């Protein structure tokens, strides 16, 4: 709005009411500030209750204060303020008009509760048969198809003497296929009786794992401190250019933090081969020497 200087505020017919969209902590605070300075405020919230993300947090950054301690007085204030009207479980559909005089269209979703009569005692929630039904996680099912089943079974038995073999098996799978294929993960989930979501959590936490196939040539460039001070950033830029010019699927690029050959920095690895003392010129040399590069 600030930029739109063409609209003269004075010319527009102003109304004394404001719509705050979103009933999170910032919406609540704005509503309170506005209401206290004399505006009529409508707070629109998509969820059935205001509070937003902050109400779900334990502590707040950076002071580590308890979030609810900051928030609950404000929730009560908003609920009670004579100048504030809450419109919850509703969505904004349309805005028309100009600064100072907007018209909004709001969709109020059905709530199966008569708002006029409800006191918010909460007894219905406690007795709701659906909400409090225990949810037992499903046992992983055997996938219908998996590649190289014999190999995977061998891997599983090879690492069976580990108390927690999952990561070790995933490392081998990742090395063999150069990524983690979904069918193998599903099979592992079944065999190791571990939820697929847990496996995915591990797969996305550790940097070694890839969920997409790597290029024929996987290039790793070290951006560790020793390599950084010797100008590794320029090597990355150069390699990016070279990759852009090449065919799809031929290259993939990863930057890593230290490959443990710091004395020879900057370091670049093409698949398993380590190249030390990299320079911008050497990138061209190495890339053109690879098989299948024009």
């Amino acid at each position, binding site marked *: 709005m600030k930029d739109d200087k063409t609209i003269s505020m004075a010319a527009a017919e102003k109304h004394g009411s404001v719509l705050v969209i979103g009933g999170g902590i910032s919406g609540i605070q704005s509503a309170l500030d506005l209401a206290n300075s004399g505006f009529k405020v409508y707070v629109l919230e998509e969820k059935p209750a205001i509070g937003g993300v902050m109400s779900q947090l334990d502590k707040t950054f950076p002071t580590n204060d308890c979030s609810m301690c900051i928030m609950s007085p404000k929730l009560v204030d908003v609920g009670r303020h004579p100048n504030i009207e809450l419109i919850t479980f509703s969505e904004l559909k349309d805005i028309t008009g100009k600064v100072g005089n907007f018209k909004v269209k709001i969709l109020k979703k059905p709530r199966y509760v008569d708002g006029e009569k409800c006191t918010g005692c909460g007894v219905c929630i406690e007795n709701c048969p659906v909400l409090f039904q225990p949810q037992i996680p499903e046992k992983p099912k055997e996938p219908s198809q998996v590649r190289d089943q014999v190999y995977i079974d061998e891997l599983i038995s090879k690492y069976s003497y580990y108390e927690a073999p999952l*990561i070790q098996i995933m490392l081998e799978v990742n090395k063999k296929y150069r990524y983690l294929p979904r069918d193998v993960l599903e099979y592992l989930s079944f065999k190791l009786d571990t939820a697929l979501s847990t496996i995915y959590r591990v797969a996305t936490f550790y940097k070694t794992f890839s969920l997409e196939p790597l290029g024929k040539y996987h290039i790793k460039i070290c951006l560790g401190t020793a390599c950084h001070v010797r100008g590794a950033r320029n090597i990355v830029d150069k390699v990016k250019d070279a990759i852009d010019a090449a065919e799809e699927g031929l290259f993939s690029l990863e930057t890593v933090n230290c490959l443990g050959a710091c004395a020879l920095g900057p370091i670049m690895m093409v698949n398993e081969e380590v190249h030390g003392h990299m320079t911008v010129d050497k990138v061209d040399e190495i890339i053109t020497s690879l098989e299948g590069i024009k």
Partner: protein
Amino acid sequence: MKKLSNPKELEKLRKTIQNRRDPNKPVVTICGGTGCQASGCEHIIETFKKEIIKQSLQEKIDVRITGCHGFCEKGPLVVIYPSKIFYPMVKSKDVSRIISETVVNNKVIEELLYVDPSSGERITYEDDIPFYKKQTRTIFGSNGKIDPKNIEDYIAISGYSALEKVLPSMKPQDVIDEVKKSGLRGRGGGGFRTGQKWESCSKAKGKQKYIICNADEGDPGAYMDRSILEGNSHSVIEGMILGAFAIDSNHGYIYVRAEYPLAVKHFSIALNQARKLGLLGKNILNSGFDFDIKIYQGGGAFVCGESSALIQSIEGNVGEPRAKHIHATERGLWDCPTVINNVETWANIPLIINKGAKWYASIGTEKSKGTKIFSLVGKINNTGLVEVPMGMTIKEIVFDIGGGIPNDKEFKAIQTGGPSGGCIPRSLMDMPIDFDELKRAGSMMGSGGMIVMDEDTCMVDVARYFMEFNLDESCGKCSSCREGNARMLEILEDICVGKGNENSIPLLEELSEYIKETSLCGLGKTAPNPVLTTLKYFKDEYLSHIQKKECPAKVCKPLIFYEINSEDCTGCGMCAKKCPVNAITGEKKKPHTIDKDICTKCGTCIATCKFNAIQVKTGEKK
């Protein structure tokens, strides 16, 4: 190899090996460490083997592929025993001469010798090279002498003799006392006293106890753990067996980064050999004590080097640290008492047992004992791994061992402690290095990375770099570390592109305080250190970026521009040809000019120009 059934048989085996070996038989040792591999040592090894067969000398000469010697800068390294003649940067064309002249006839080939850059003299023997001469290589010295894939080599240099000494005659408490008396402090970063750690674990109750070797070495710029594992795995295994004996544990783990395949390979070979000899497994040397080690590979996450995250990872979870109100020594792996030590710490144990706590405590400073391996990297002449007694000054390490800064540049700072450490300026060059001095200067020991920076390194950029690193590696559990680091990085990035303002520095300081105070694990607690130390020692550089919009080191691209010096430019046109964005124009044989609006400052022209005519400037464009 036969299984040894008591310590005496081990002693006998050592004698047999030593007697079998002729000390005068020439041995060509070639470094096969990762550094030398990157310089092409595999090809040199092949050539040596072929050449020896060609000259029919298989019977007369031994070839030994060793682990890292430390002088990685000059690889591939070849040392000829018993004379110890040293050839750096060996090329395959020289191999046949080295064999026929030096190995067979003991003649030194002058032009292949190492040239000392400071005096210009040629140096014949390994021990006389300044880089090695000033070091005290108690742990690392054996690397150059043994083949890591051959347990006999390690036994021959009195390997496993500490075990031989402990099993029949010492009690677990004696071992703990010896380690306590030695004053050994953990080499993984924190500098916690190893003896005390073992003692509290030995006193803790649990149905099972675990020993873990932390080989996750995530500090960028440090690679000593890797070199020990690749070059001398047995010393770590021996240390772990002794530790297990001391705290009465039967299960060991070593957690190695997946990025270190060679280390994993050598370590598993070493484990198998030790098992075959009965040095690992059930009833070790008939002492009734069982112990074995499993290798566990990590998946590439820096935070997994932190002990509680590492334990999470071995348990098969994502590596998120937990609060440390209960120590791992009481409830660690699978909730059992656990001792975690760094690779280098373990490698120190056999030495302490063999030579005694008194000897060990005589090296180093009052509160930091023994030697420490540093990886001397960055802008320095002799990059590599150096092992020095604690308490050596920065100046000695950088100038006497490291040979100073290349290209006559000015030494500006060293960075220690990795992303948790800080930058120590030139003015503190006479500071002795040990755990406490480094802490006092605002940095820390970390795992021993020592990155040297010269006048061309921008300290704001360094701070920004580490912030990026920490943000990237933060596991995301604490909001102060996850969000706070991101905000600090934003401010630093703004400063680097000339958008800093007078609030930037106070804001950085304030955020640093909060992040340090409110993070759970060591990563967050120390993440602001690089920023705080650079602010403390190099505030003027921050101020130049903020007030004058200048980058004194000429690194931050938005604050610099390129210009051609018309006096030096001969108009050869090479730069114009190479420029990827065609920013350089000019007539042939006449000085060229750079269009500063098009120039992307990629550096290609600087690398191309033979006349040093292209200058990097900072500040207002004219």
